[in-house]
Structure formats: C-alpha cells, structure tokens
C-alpha cells in the first residue's frame, strides 16, 4: 500500500471528527469527535513511521494516546461537574459568556 | 559649572517638584511646586547668557548619554537659540500656572494630584523642547500627553471626559504616525549611508535624509505637529478641550503645549526634510491661511468666551505655521518669536477669562456688559492682553506677527496678503470680547449684574504681572528674542536658500556646512559675528543688499 492511502483515510477520519465537533451539541459526542481527530492523526503518524523507517511516529502515537487519556479524564470530569450543577449538558446552553 | 548638566536639570527639576507635590499636603505641596518651578525658571534663565549671544550654532549646547545604542536611542538634550526662550517660556508659565493654582491648593479638589500633574506636564514639555534624539523626543511628546489628559479629565468642566478623550485621540493619532515616521527616518538614513541606525538629530543632519522619502516622512511628522498646533482641519479637539479645562492648566496647555507642535516643525521637519518641506510648503501655507481665517471667523461668532479664546489661540498658531513655512529667516524667526509671544498672551488671556468666569459664573458673552465699572484693574489688564493679542504695534505679538508675515510675504505674496488679512478680524473679535465683557450695558437680571465686585486679588495679580511686563517689554525690544536665533535659524534657512553670500545674511547661510557634535558636552563658538550697530551711513549698503534680497526671494 502507498502511504497516501493511509493518509487519505486519516484525512477523512480527521475531517469527520472536525465536522462532528461542529454539528453535535452533546459534549460527549463532541468529545468523541475530538478523539476521532486524534486517532486520525495517530494513523498518519503510524503510516509515516512505517514508511519513513522512523521510530518518532511510534513515540508520538504513544504520547497522543496518553494525552488523549488524560484529556478524557479531565474532560469527563468537567462535563460531570457541569451536569451535577445544572442537570443539562447541552453545550449550547453554555452561553452566559458572550459579546 | 561647565560640567553641571544644566539641561538635564531643567528637565528634571519639575519632575522633582511633581514628586514633592504628590507627597506633601496642600499648601506645603504648593510651596514645593512653586519652588521647583522657580528653580526651573532660574536655571532656564541662566542659559540666556550662554546662548543668547547670537553666535551659537544650532544644537550648540548638548548633553548626551547612550541609552539603547543598538536601536540608535540616546538621551540627548540640546539647547540653542531656537528653543532657548521656549524653555524659559515653559518655566515661566509653569510658575504662573502653579501660582494661579493657589486656590486649588488651599481649598480645591485633589490638590496634590493637581499640582503633581501640572509639574509633570511641565516636565514633559521641557523634555520636548530639549530632546534632540527623535526617540527621546517622542517619549517626552507622549509623556506630556498623559498629565494633560488627566488634568483635563479630572479637573475640567462638565464635559471633561469627552473633551479629554477627544484631545488624546486626536493627538495620539498624529503622534503615532510620527512614531512611524521617526523610525522610518532612522532607517532611511542608515540604509542610505550604510551607517548604524541612529535617531540623534545631529547625526541625522550630518548624514542627510535621502531626498526621495522626505515628503512622506515630513507628512508623518506633520501629522503630529499639526494636530498639536490645531491646524485646520485637525483642530477638532481644541475648542472642546480649551473650554473644559481649568484656566491654570490652560496656561500650560494653550500657552506651551500648543507650541510644541510648531516647535517640532522648526526643530525637526525643516532641517531634516528640506526637500519634502519645500515641496509641501504651499500646502502647509494654505492650511495655515485657512486656519487663520477660518478660526478668526469662528472667534468672531463664538458665543462663549472660552471657545472664542480657543479659536483665537489656534488662529494665531496659524500665523506661526505660516511663518515657518515661509522658509526664510524672517518667517521662521518671526514664528519662533511668535511662539513665545503667543504663549504669554494666551496665558494672560486665559487667566483673565478665568478671573471673569470666577466672578460671574458664566462664560456666555451675551451675559456680559460694563464689568469695567466694577473691575477697573481687571479691565485694564484685559485691555493690554487683548490689544497685544490683536497685534497692536508696539506690543509683543506685533513683532512676531510682523516678522512672520514679512517672511511669508517675501516667499509668496498671495499667502502673505491672505495671512496679514487676519489683523482685521483679529481686531474685531478681540474688541467684541473685550467690549462685550467690559463695556456697554450690563444685561438686566443676568449673572453678571449680581456678580461679586471684588477686583483682582493679589493672588491673581502675581501670575499676571510677569506676563504683562513681558507683553510690553518684548514689544519694545523684540530683538532680545531674535538675536540668539540668528545663527541657528540661518543654518536652517541655508538648506532652502541658494548660497548667495550676503553681507546681511547670517554666516550659517553662506552655504557653509556646520557639523553638529552632539557627543561632546560643550558650547561651540565661532568667530564673533560683527555686531550690528546700525548707523545712518551704514545704511548706504541697504539698497544694494535689498537688490540681492530680491534676487534671493525671486529664486
């Protein structure tokens, strides 16, 4: 397989994730979309690592995994905290700050 | 004594005064402020014997210290015949303004801040007049703005906030463009001559600004200066600011700060950008004439005497601009003389107007009449100041206006005639103000009819007296002012006039290039120019020189 093939899959996943953030108002789903974007990038890294014969990509993926895990923890904590105080998690309701 | 950094002292003594004024309570602070301003005045006056000989070059007396050498920034102060008297004026008017603030210090609102800001303003303006590194100049230029903004806004009339912010926005718009022009000047000079980037005026003058960019750079500087001078059509801030500001502050703002703009033209634009100035001089002259006439007419129909004086002030500043852009000796010297005179007169007029308003509580001209019956001394003082303002021959303003118009006339008859025309509306509006307030009949039931009748108090006399003395003295011997600037102005003019040797021209104008040494702290002396005692028989040369003069003007 050409590297381009992986990259195109990666690009598609990334785009879907990005659009997902835009179109969904459930923070959990938005969050999932972000995970999707990160994973798309991971795919690119792995493909590059493979085709470049370079270990950097692997390492980067590992870091991204960790970061994603940490983000999940923090993000879910924030979402839960908000849910606790207002029993609604619609992102569109968070518009006190504007203008 | 030669090693004493007198210029720095002149600049920083007011700052010292400001600090003291902030710390000390009411009258002690006032005393301290007055002391500081008096010391500053004394220091400034001490410069006159050193620089008033008529033989000192432009930028003769220097104090130099590196600051940010990589960026061409240094702490350089210079004094010569051009700024000598402006320094004195600022010091004097600071004394006057502080003196006139006694009431505030005794029982007014926030006296410590008031006095501090006033001295800070004076500090900034001394810096503006003395700085000859462009960066330093800009620093002081803006430092001057801060206390002015606060003074207007904190102590002004009911519309003070708007007036203050308008003032700041107008002036900042100009000065930010100047900032760009300052940087560009340094860059153009250093890249043309492949020298290190510097903003020292002396170094820039020695190197020379490349001709092709002079026009643009000049415009950048002119934006700042023209706004400060209230040149038409950039005057939008003037009337509002002046009518909202307390008079003691106006003494400094109208009396001195307005001069910084026109001073900037002389100090920086003319020597640095001869070609640019030359090509744009007609436009500047047009604007100056427009200012003169337009503001004169506005003064003629103003309903409120503070606004009237504001227009008077900028109309006269138009005369100064006109003189400067005549680009000949008489014009520029007249302009500088007029800067001093204008400062003195407008300060006096604002003090008087303030005294009137304090007594009557109104500033609508229609409310006034026959005050002279109650306030004869005030009327007398007012009369003298008004007469000087309208350019009565024999009082100080006349000398400056005469030279400025003379210079203008020699460079362009049309502008000369149009500019001189202002003497007619000037007489009209000043008399309208004077007579309207002091003479005629008191309107029934107005604020004036029931006004307090106390004439000028000692506290009001003292600030006015030195101004009156100068109005008369400088009208009789204006040569006091022009003599020290012969040489430096001659050097400026030499870049505009063809190098025709003339028995009556200053040596600097003979095409002889003077090299400015900002680094050494010294006063540069050349051979004594022959003193100019004029005797009847010597006048035999006059006609011959007159012909040359004509040739020079024609060229």
């Amino acid at each position, binding site marked *: 397989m050409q590297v381009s093939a992986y990259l195109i899959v990666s690009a598609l996943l990334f*785009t879907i994730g*990005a659009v997902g953030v835009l179109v969904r108002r459930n923070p*959990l789903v938005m969050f999932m979309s972000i995970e999707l974007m990160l994973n798309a990038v991971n795919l690119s890294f792995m493909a590059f690592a493979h085709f470049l014969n370079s270990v950097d990509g692997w390492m980067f993926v590992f870091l991204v995994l960790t970061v994603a895990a940490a983000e999940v923890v*923090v993000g879910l904590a924030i979402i839960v905290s908000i849910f606790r105080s207002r029993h609604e998690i619609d992102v569109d309701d968070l518009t006190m700050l504007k203008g | 004594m030669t090693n004493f950094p007198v210029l720095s002292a002149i600049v920083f003594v007011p700052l010292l005064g400001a600090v003291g004024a902030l710390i000390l309570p009411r009258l002690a602070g006032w005393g301290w402020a007055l002391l500081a301003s008096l010391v500053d005045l004394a220091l400034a006056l001490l410069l006159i014997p050193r620089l008033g000989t008529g033989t000192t070059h432009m930028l003769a007396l220097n104090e130099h210290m590196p600051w940010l050498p990589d960026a061409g920034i240094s702490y350089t102060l210079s004094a010569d015949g051009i700024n000598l008297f402006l320094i004195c004026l600022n010091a004097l008017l600071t004394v006057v303004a502080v003196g006139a603030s006694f009431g505030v210090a005794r029982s007014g609102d926030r006296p410590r801040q008031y006095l501090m800001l006033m001295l800070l303003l004076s500090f900034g303006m001394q810096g503006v007049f003395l700085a000859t590194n462009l960066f330093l100049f800009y620093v002081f230029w803006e430092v001057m703005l801060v206390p002015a903004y606060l003074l207007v806004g904190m102590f002004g009339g009911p519309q003070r906030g708007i007036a203050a912010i308008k003032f700041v926005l107008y002036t900042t718009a100009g000065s930010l463009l100047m900032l760009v022009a300052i940087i560009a000047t340094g860059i153009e000079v250093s890249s043309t001559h492949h020298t290190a980037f510097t903003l020292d005026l002396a170094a820039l003058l020695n190197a020379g600004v490349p001709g092709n960019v002079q026009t643009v750079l000049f415009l950048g500087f002119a934006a700042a200066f023209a706004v400060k001078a209230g040149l038409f059509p950039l005057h939008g801030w003037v009337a509002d600011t002046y009518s909202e500001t307390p008079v003691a502050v106006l003494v400094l703002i109208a009396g001195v700060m307005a001069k910084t703009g026109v001073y900037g033209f002389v100090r920086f634009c003319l020597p640095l950008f001869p070609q640019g100035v030359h090509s744009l001089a007609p436009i500047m002259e047009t604007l100056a004439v427009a200012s003169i006439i337009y503001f004169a007419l506005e003064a003629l129909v103003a309903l409120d005497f503070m606004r009237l004086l504001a227009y008077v002030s900028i109309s006269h500043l138009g005369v100064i601009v006109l003189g400067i852009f005549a680009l000949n000796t008489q014009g520029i010297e007249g302009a500088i003389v007029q800067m001093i005179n204008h400062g003195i007169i407008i300060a006096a007029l604002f003090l008087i107007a303030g005294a009137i308003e304090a007594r009557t509580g109104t500033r609508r001209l229609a409310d006034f009449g026959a005050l002279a019956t109650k306030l004869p001394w005030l009327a007398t003082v007012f009369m003298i100041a008004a007469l000087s303002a309208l350019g009565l021959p024999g009082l100080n303003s006349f000398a400056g206006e005469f030279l400025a118009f003379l210079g203008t006339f020699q460079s362009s008859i049309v502008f000369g005639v149009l500019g001189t025309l202002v003497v007619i509306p000037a007489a009209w509006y000043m008399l309208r103000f004077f007579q309207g307030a002091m003479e005629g009949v008191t309107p029934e039931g107005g604020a004036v009819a029931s006004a307090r009748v106390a004439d000028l108090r000692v506290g009001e006399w003292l600030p006015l007296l030195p101004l009156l003395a100068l109005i008369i003295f400088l009208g009789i011997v204006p040569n006091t002012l022009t003599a020290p600037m012969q040489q430096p102005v001659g050097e400026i003019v030499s870049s505009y006039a063809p190098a025709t040797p003339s028995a009556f021209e200053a040596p600097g104008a003979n095409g002889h290039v003077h090299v400015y040494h900002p680094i050494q702290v010294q006063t540069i002396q050349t051979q004594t120019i022959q003193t100019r005692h004029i005797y009847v028989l010597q006048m035999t040369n006059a006609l011959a020189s007159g012909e040359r003069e004509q040739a020079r003007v024609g060229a």
Partner: protein
Amino acid sequence: MAAGVIAFFVLATVSVASALGVVLFRNPVYSMLSLILNLLSLAFFFLMLEAIFVAAIQVLIYAGAVMVLFLFVVTMLTPSGGGISGPDRLRWQWGAGIGLGIILAGGLIIALLNGSIAEGAKAAGMNGLAQAVDHFGNTEAFGQALFHGFSFPFELTGVLLVVAVLGAVVMSRRFARE
C-alpha cells in the same frame, strides 16, 4: 499483497463508516460504540503497519480502559434522550460543517495525493526503526526508544497524568465548606 490491499480497503471502509457513526448516531451510546469500533479498526491498521505494541495498547488502553470510562459517563449522563433537550439552535451548523468538511477533506486529499514521503527523508533512513526492530524485536525496539531517546517526553507524560488526576479530583470532590 492483494490480501493486504483488500484488508486495507475493508478496514478503511469500517473505520470511515464507524467514524460517521460517531457523528451521526443520535444516541451517544451508539456513538460511543461506534467509536470503539473505529479505534479497533485503527488498531488493525497499526498491525498492518507493523506496530504491534502500539496496536496492543490501542486496544487495551484506548478501546478498552478509556472507552469504558467514557461509556460509564455516557450512560450516567444520558438517562433518556441524551441529556439534551430542546431544539437545536444551531441547525445551520450542519450545513456549514458539512461544507467545510468537504473543503477540508478535499484540500487535504489533494495535498496528500500530490505529495508523498520525501525521498530524501526516506533515504536518510532517519533513525532506523526497521533495523531496530530487526535487532531488538518489535516491542523491545519500542521500549528501547521510549526509555532512551524519548525518555524525556515519556517522563513528561507523568506530569500530564498528575495534572489529569488533580483535575478529576478538583472537578468531582466537594467540600462541606461550599
């Protein structure tokens, strides 16, 4: 080779479809499951790219542990109808999002099709992953790099995790003082 190509296309289809599922499923739980599917398909990609260890942690940690946490929260917060009520005030973002998505994907694909791995970079063989794999074995090579050349970022992840833990504590623990 052909098997590889077929596998690639199958996996590509699955991953893209599951990604779309994440975005399009109304119920976040379905989105969640779809995401897990996507992660798994990626793990297979990693296997195809000969990164065995990464594929393993992708399945174990990501698709496993992390997603379980996720699932837990999702189910907790979406008792019925997803915790979202009321009409969507930003429906138009669907149009904008899809439009932009097409542009984005189009741009990326054009760029990616026009470029490939730099020959020079490939020739430089940068840091010889293949040799290391040959020398140490796949997982061992990963470990060697992690604990040698990449020890610093690896240690940094420790800081990151401390932050995450603190965050979780701050967000969830409550004091009586409030």
